[in-house]
């Protein structure tokens, strides 16, 4: 039987795969928000299972900052820049979505033999979800051409690392978690401002054309 924690992180991984299939920024950001809410839910369940009160605090922070704050900030940025749809690069979104689902299945094979601490029950699902989120973030970064899409892919990778750490360990020190969260938040803010600057200087945020910067 799959536990609630594993169900939550697997749902998050599947939602991330579905996110790859559309280029609409609003839909992407919405799916990212829901995915992160699932991860926050998994954190609450882990806190319940381990009896660790600091994890609840982290879950609340993730729920408010990462699941609501970041998507709203990026949505506002995209509305200010007047971009609603990514252009897409390399692979078309439907194929990329299928690719990320294949990678989702592959991550189960890859993580089959990862050693976990004795106390972690059924760590396989969590590890697979984490690795799958990593892959999916990579696919997002590969198939998006606008800077906001790149940020989104980076955020999905960050989610993957967090899920892996959450499910494979018996809890990280709260200070480390908070530090990572803060770093990520500042990173997104800086990226948002940078995107503005890029738009101002080059009149587009297409990362494929950034090579024009070379002399």
């Amino acid at each position, binding site marked *: 039987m799959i536990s609630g924690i594993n169900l939550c992180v697997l749902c998050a991984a599947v939602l991330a795969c579905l996110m790859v299939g559309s280029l609409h920024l609003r839909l992407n950001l919405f799916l990212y928000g829901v995915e992160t809410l699932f991860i926050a839910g998994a954190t609450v369940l882990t806190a319940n299972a381990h009896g660790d009160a600091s994890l609840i605090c982290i879950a609340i922070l993730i729920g408010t900052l990462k699941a609501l704050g970041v998507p709203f900030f990026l949505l506002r940025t995209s509305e200010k820049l007047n971009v609603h749809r990514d252009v897409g690069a390399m692979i078309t*979104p439907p194929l990329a979505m299928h690719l990320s*689902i294949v990678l989702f299945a592959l991550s189960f094979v890859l993580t089959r033999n990862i050693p976990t601490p004795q106390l972690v029950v059924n760590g396989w699902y969590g590890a697979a979800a984490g690795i799958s989120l990593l892959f999916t973030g990579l696919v997002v970064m590969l198939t998006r051409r606008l800077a906001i899409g790149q940020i989104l892919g980076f955020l999905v990778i960050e989610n993957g690392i967090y899920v892996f750490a959450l499910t494979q360990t018996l809890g990280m020190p709260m200070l480390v978690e908070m530090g990572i969260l803060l770093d990520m938040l500042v990173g997104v803010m800086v990226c948002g401002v940078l995107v503005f600057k890029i738009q101002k200087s080059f009149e587009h945020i297409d990362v494929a054309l950034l090579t024009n910067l070379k002399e």
Partner: protein
Amino acid sequence: MNDINTDVLRSCSHWILFVSSIAILPPVCLTLIRKTKARLQSRIGPPLLQPFYDLIKLCRKSETVSSTMSGMFRLASVAGLATIILLAWLTPWLSYKPWSPSADLFLIIYLFALARVFSLLGALDSGSAFGAFGASREVTLGLLVEPALMLGLVALGLFCGSSDLRMIFSYPQTIGGGAAAGAGAAGIWLLVGIAILLASLIELSRMPVDDPTTHLELTMVHEAMVLEASGRNLALIEFAHALRMSIFFGLSAQCFVHALASVCRINTLTQGILSVVGIFGIAIFVGVLESLAVKLQWRKVPEFVAYVVSMSLLAAFVAAGNGGIKL
């Protein structure tokens, strides 16, 4: 002696129940969709039996036939309805069936394709340009949705170890299924249910793909094909389309019922009631969806189909990972 009498009585009542479901469920589904849309637009909407009245009205009307038509036009609508009724008998879309024959999943998929071929022939035979437009779009949609649907059903077959739909849809009652099957089984049924539901929206040319209430012939799919039909012919086509809709909704509802059955125990009576309630629930969901969603650009339809394929693909992987391969 008494036992035999009870058996006969039971099978008779099953037959009556099944045949009346075939007659009643499709028009009621149509009304539910229209009623939901009307309610969401603050209208009262049609009465519950409006599709019946429409069918009776169409049967009474005289027919206008274009001079270019051959006998194929009329034959196509009759053969289409016959194929769909055969499908209603073969497909396990209701929990209560008097006698379920064994039906391979590939047979079902290609019988649906055969029904489509008949409607295409009818549309092309009418000789109107719009009919050909509609036929061309219908073929495109059929090509797109067929692999997605097949992958979903094959995932179920992989999980249950049989390509026979009767075996697949009686799986939770037999060994290996039931309340012990757990979350993996529920996940597969749920994913395939969603895949069939989304595929049915494409297959029946409903909202995100095509607007069934549009008056613009240039964007119609199903409506463009039946533009030249009138009178009894139109009544046959409309009823066949509605029946096809309820078969698809029923198949999807069956998947959801099985998902429920693999996490908790439900008895046969509840399953029968749930299968009908599920069809109505899906019809209402489609009504809500049609009120909220906008029609996709024709070029964006493959992106929508990709989501169906993804659901089926996920289900197939879960089935393969669940130790389902024991053929």
